[in-house]
């Protein structure tokens, strides 16, 4: 079972080509999507890639959220379509209120690029079901505004509902509760700061743990099809 996975290019998206390549290497049909279009047409899932959409001016992800295509993505996500927001994509998802909380400047105020160790904390999502509970994975991290914040109540809900999907083992940026990635109630929308699309090809990646995200999607899509 394969599927069509769309990757959105906003002005200033950078990892869109990488995401398309990862999608293809994991057996899906890659579909480039342009932020200015009105609909995403017939894709089975959407990735909002990393980068600096609109230069990250104002707040990371804040301006991309108003792209015409986002209106359609928000609608489809609310109806259950799988959406993965990576880094800047995670920021866009928070700004769009598809995910709670916000991403702010790293506590040390520097951009940081390193290989990050994460714990998989929930396997009940479209994008993490191929991992095992508590599995340690290694995924590339690179951002300047990856510091996850939310009010106390939101944090409580996220923890109680086990919606923290990935947690840092060595918090790189000051994120509350060491949060690296979260999901919505339904488990179809996942956002995380690390970059699984960079961990697919062993020639250029320190690990291939990113493949687990795509294997999870495959599982999900074949279950839906069955």
């Amino acid at each position, binding site marked *: 079972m394969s599927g069509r996975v769309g990757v959105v290019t906003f*002005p*200033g998206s*950078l*990892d869109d*080509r*990488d995401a398309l*390549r*990862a999608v293809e290497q994991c057996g899906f049909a890659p579909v480039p999507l342009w932020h*200015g279009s009105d609909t995403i047409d017939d894709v089975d899932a959407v990735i909002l890639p*990393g*980068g*600096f959409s*609109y*230069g*990250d*001016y104002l707040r990371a992800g804040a301006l991309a959220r108003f792209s015409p295509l986002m209106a359609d993505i928000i609608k489809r996500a609310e109806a259950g379509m799988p959406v993965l927001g990576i880094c800047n994509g995670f920021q866009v998802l928070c700004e769009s209120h598809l995910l709670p909380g916000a991403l702010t400047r790293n506590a040390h105020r*520097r*951009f*940081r*690029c*390193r290989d990050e160790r994460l714990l998989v904390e929930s396997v009940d999502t479209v994008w993490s079901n191929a991992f095992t509970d508590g599995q340690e994975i290694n995924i*590339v991290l*690179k951002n*300047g505004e990856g510091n996850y914040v939310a009010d106390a109540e939101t944090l409580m809900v996220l923890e109680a509902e086990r919606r923290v999907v990935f947690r840092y083992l060595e918090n790189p940026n000051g994120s509350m509760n060491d949060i690296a990635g979260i999901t919505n109630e339904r488990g179809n929308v996942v956002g995380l700061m690390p*970059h699984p*699309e*960079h961990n697919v*090809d062993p*020639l*250029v*990646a320190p690990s291939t743990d990113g493949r687990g995200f795509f294997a999870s999607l495959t599982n999900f899509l074949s279950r839906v099809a069955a």
Partner: protein
Amino acid sequence: MADTTANAANTPDVEQPWADLGLKEDEYQRIREILGRRPTAAELAMYSVMWSEHCSYKSSKVHLRKFGDLPKTTPRGELLAGIGENAGVLDIGNGWAVTFKIESHNHPSYVEPHQGAATGVGGIVRDILAMGARPVGVMDSLRFGPLDLPDTQRVLPGVVAGVGTYGNCLGLPNIGGEAFFDPTYSGNPLVNALGVGVLKHEDLHLAHASGTGNKVVLYGATTGGDGIGGVSVLASETFDADGPAKRPSVQVGDPFMEKLLIECTLELFAAGVVTGIQDLGGAGLSCATSELASAGDGGMHIELDRTPLRDSSLSPEEILMSESQERMMAVVEPGRVDEFMEICAKWDVEATVIGEVTDGDRLVIDWHGETVVDVPPRTVAHDGPVYERPYARPEWIDKVNADAAEDLARDALPLREQVLRVMGAPNVADRTWITEQYDRYVLGDTVLARPESAGMIRVDEDGLGVALSVDCNGRIAYLNPYLGAQHALAQAYRCVAATGAEPVAVSDCLNFGSPEDPSAMWQFVEAILGLVDGCRELGTPVTGGNVSFYNQTGETAIVPTPTVGVLGVIDDVATRVSSKLPDVGHELWLLGESRDELSGSVWADVVHDGHLGGMPPKVDLEAEKRLVALMSEAHGLVASARPLVEGGLVRAAVESAIIAGRGVEIEQQGEPVAWWFGESSARLLVGVDPAVAAEWNAACEKHEVPAVRVGTVLDGTQVRLGDMEFSLEELSGTWRAPIPAAMES
């Protein structure tokens, strides 16, 4: 009211501020001769900025010509473009070509470290783009004053954040670079940025305006008052004692705009709507119009008042001099203009037709219908003054050379203590604090990057790739600039070769003191001779580069810093060799000849209180070539390879152990200080599987490379150097601490 050409003809005696604009009296007189009248204000602005040192290479031109004598072929084939273009282009096979170049942005980076460094990256990337290439990577070669100096704590974080922000935001992986500290760089940091791009042969674009009636389009950011006079004021004048208090206007970069400009320009190339193209960098429109026109077969007519401005009060001369970033100029056939505009609109990039190619041979610029510039473009762009600056070998050099570090006490400290000093030396210590601020993964083709000694990028899915290293040891160049330049070349060449790639071409950035000082000029001339002779011997042409003069604070010039970038080609990136220590049980072999060579070394610097004297280590380019031949043929046999550079054997061994998190044991052979800390060139430390040791030994013999087995990779985390015992933790603590400690204090 604008100063028109008619007005200029009628008012020959008007006083003009040529001196304030940096022109010499005879230069001003030459402009009057060329024009047969006094220049208008706009013309004066153009000539002054284009005839500045930075744009005209007036002090360096006669010497740079020597690069032109080198054969225009690389071991992989003909150069497709060489010196004189925005960046050199070379064939790497499979129909692919690469372009790369280094450029300096030193003075602006002292005034405003973040924006200065950022716009340095922006500028070199536009040069690469202007050749028709997709930019695929950047590198940065940085020099600062002593690590513990308060001003370094201002300059270094700003520069690194600037290089990082701009490159990260463009989506270009940073695949390597260097950072060095020396007292002579305080008050005069160096920021040299390297850009690399790839293109198909048929996509090559050149900067020329041809075809009468073709339109001249300015696109990208609007033009503002930032960086006005930046070229002549920032790049050609020494800072006086009060340094940044003088604060001239600087350029502010918008990397987001540049990212749009890149994607837009690549789409314009693909659509075939670009006849000629030029980036706008130093000297802005003055440079772009005069260079495009003089490289073409006709003249050019510009209506300057059409330039989109972000400050409507700018005068025509200010517009001509503005260095606003993120702008390009294209020559487009009239029938293709609409298509051009559509693509720009898709990317939200503003584009305006501001003129056209004419059949005359003049560059004419109008301002609201009146002519303010009417000049032969060549006289602006290429026929600037050329100086034969006097140069002389300084007297002090004999004394410096006589003060050899080989004569210094070798037991001033216990040996173990000396090891820790060297590993914790600012010029050896871990650079993670810097490199962590750079994205090295974006684009998904980075095969090697920091902490490897060279960067490597995959060019196509068949595995064709390029490797790059940029190097220079200014302390060595101070001892002898000719040999220093060759050391820089040899080191970059060796670092590329260690990855398994074949080194094929060179770009350089020559950072020196004032050309008006005969000693600095001598250093410059010697460095060029060293490079030319070295490149001839290695068979690697110089494809382009940059010169930065006036790097001095008061009377103190920087140590000469001829930074060299070497590019290599590898047919299959999957066969690349990493410098990371291989698995337990592997043997470590030292290749090349080790001599008693300590002058200019890190050891002399940190064990003997900043000692800098003696003669540089021997340069043996034949030996470097033999290493390359060996690695090209037999890199499949080695499991790791690390070039020996500053810090010698001890650093090569310890760093690769720390990075791999594995222990290591190295024998001591010969006199301990020279053995551990000597900086003889043409050496590699390689890891070899014992199962292929015999085969490996035979390969070394065949290529006449001296090779000795010196150690093994250990199980566990001890590091044994001769009789000395260390834990990996102790060494790694010493090595990792200095930069974070200084920056976060």
